[in-house]
């Protein structure tokens, strides 16, 4: 048996491998369930019920899928250029902090809702982009490995978030009222700063959050940017062969900064959507934003979508469904942690499947002379 590089990647494999990974992951996770004495089939039926079929299930799935679409798009945008921005988690926190400040301030000063929301979107993008530009600038100017730096900044952002709500009387913290003096919490957004949602009247009503719409829009914009513009082409060349890009006179530094900025802005937008759409406060509760791992799961989403922005939206919905089922079902039949196990296996099989896309596995000893790559 030998493994050789494919000269062309067949189109059908690009869809078949992620789909096969999903199937394999359910099979492998079934083995884990079976080995620990659970009935895999009934667990899976519960997952499907809780994710799609029960009353209100689709709405909750959308609640989980929306932030994952943002962090998935953030990862996809950067990973396409082989810029490994692992910092979507921290960038999302920063976007949430800035967007929350904008919502609290402008919403409290009688601005019209549309303007407040627009300002929150801009603030979220700016907060996320600024946080992402730290590793971006270090990479551009000092060639510092962005993987570790962006990751380290996740923890710093998490400490900042905790600090703002728990350890200081900051602008974001609720300081009035009896509850606030007993248990630290963040301020609730004024009504003018809440993001609207569109109701679809099926299955007990599905609320389509504004953030989900924005995520789809961003996905189309990114798809256009990366496949139809000179910018996207240059980013692709830079990712595939930095040296070739340099000889062709492309501006490496500028591109690194731009792509990291875009990636961070999209993650920050996810933070703004968290605040405006769902939490309506900064929410640094120990079981809040920091326990969701949206930033890290976004990498699963992006990898499974093979960094294609449009596919990210679809995958985010599926992984969001899984997350939602995990949250709802947590209990005896459905030990917490199972969702992470399944996500890990999905990612492992997608990664292993990459081999089939990039290489041809040939059984036998002869090798045609014409195919030497």
């Amino acid at each position: 048996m030998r493994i050789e590089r494919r000269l062309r990647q067949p189109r059908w494999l690009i869809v078949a491998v992620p789909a096969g990974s999903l199937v394999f992951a359910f099979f492998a996770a079934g083995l884990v369930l079976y080995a620990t004495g659970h009935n895999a089939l009934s667990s899976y039926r519960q997952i499907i019920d809780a994710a799609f079929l029960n009353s209100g299930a689709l709405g909750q799935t959308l609640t989980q899928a929306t932030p994952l679409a943002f962090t998935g798009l953030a990862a996809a945008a950067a990973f396409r250029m082989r810029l490994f921005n692992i910092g979507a988690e921290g960038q999302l926190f920063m976007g949430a902090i800035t967007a929350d400040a904008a919502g609290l301030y402008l919403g409290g000063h009688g601005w019209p809702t549309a303007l407040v929301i627009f300002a929150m979107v801009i603030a979220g993008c700016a907060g996320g982009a600024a946080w992402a530009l730290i590793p971006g600038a270090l990479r551009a100017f000092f060639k510092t490995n962005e993987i570790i730096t962006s990751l380290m900044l996740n923890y710093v952002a998490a400490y900042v978030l905790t600090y703002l709500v728990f350890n200081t009387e900051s602008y974001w913290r609720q300081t009035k009222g009896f509850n606030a003096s007993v248990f630290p919490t963040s301020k609730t957004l004024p009504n003018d700063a809440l993001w609207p949602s569109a109701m679809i009247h099926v299955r007990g009503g599905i609320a389509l959050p504004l953030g989900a719409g924005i995520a789809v829009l961003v996905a189309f914009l990114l798809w256009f940017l990366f496949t139809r513009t000179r910018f996207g082409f240059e980013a692709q060349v830079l990712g595939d062969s930095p040296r070739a890009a340099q000889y062709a006179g492309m501006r490496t530094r500028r591109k690194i900064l731009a792509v990291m900025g875009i990636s961070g802005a999209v993650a920050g937008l996810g933070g703004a959507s968290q605040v405006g759409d769902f939490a309506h406060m900064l929410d640094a509760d120990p079981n809040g934003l920091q326990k969701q791992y949206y930033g890290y799961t976004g990498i699963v989403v992006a990898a499974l979508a093979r960094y294609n922005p449009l596919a990210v939206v679809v995958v985010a919905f599926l992984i969001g469904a899984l997350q939602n089922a995990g949250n709802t079902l947590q209990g005896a039949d459905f030990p917490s942690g199972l969702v992470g196990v399944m996500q890990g296996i999905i990612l492992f099989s997608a990664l292993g499947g990459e081999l089939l896309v990039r290489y041809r596995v040939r059984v036998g000893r002869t090798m045609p002379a014409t195919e030497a790559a």
Partner: protein
Amino acid sequence: MNNSLLVVVLASGVAYGTPLLYGALGELLAERSGVLNLGVEGMMLVGAVMGFWTVQRLHADTALSLAAAVGVAAIAGMAMAAIHAFLVITLRASQIVSGLALTIFAGAAGLSSYLGNDLNLADNPARHAFSAAVFPASMQRLPVVGPIIFGQNVLVYASWVCVVGVSLYLSRTRLGLNVRAVGEAPASADAMGINVTAYRYAHTLAGGAFAGVAGATFTLAITPQWVSGITGGAGWIAIALVIFAFWRPALCLVGAYFFGALQALSPQLQARGINLGPTELWANSLPYVMTVVVLVFVSASGARRRLGAPASLGLPYVREER
């Protein structure tokens, strides 16, 4: 004197730094062979839960239970590392994504939490734990060195042996030199007749074993109990520590104790009523911020090569494509 801030912080710095040291030593071995494993946090957490499970369920005396627990933790860490090794060495997957996948799979929202909950390990203290009373009380009362050096548990002393062992292995043995060759120039190593695949597998697995022990340090010594996500990001600090230490075992020890001391600083300052601004914020963030700063220096022109980053770290080796 032994109650002075400096001595207390240093003594707990050594204790808190020990899991970082084990994790970093393991990651150092893997990276020296050219494999970047970002799954340390996940491997640590699985080691932590399996070590704790062994202590709770094995009916044996303290010494035997603890020895078995450390062994089981190491094997659990190795099993996790084996997934990463298979994906990146045999299947040539991206080391970065695979390592992250390992942390998601095994980490605080994954297998470690699944196992801990399914085996009902939460809410019970460990039946046996590593005691800090290895040396006689008179020695522990010695000024300064008493608490810092003689007031630690067996895992701390074992980690010192590991530092010396790994250091000698990499610099003084034939096998260790081969590892470095594999990490620097796998094609040349292959031409010399070194089995690149075998070396990379062996050292990735060894890295997993160290990470497993690092996790067990949490559940059997630092806080002898199990809660989900007990390592709290120590795995990531361990990865950073390897860079911080310029891929040298002895410097890993210094860095680990420094980061450990930072962790101990904030509660100590609070307990003594010393106000140095937002301590929780800066003392907790400092290890991460310092890693970023050090990385910038390490990556500055030419320094990276001089300071010892393995030249083919993160790159798959494919003989046909060399």
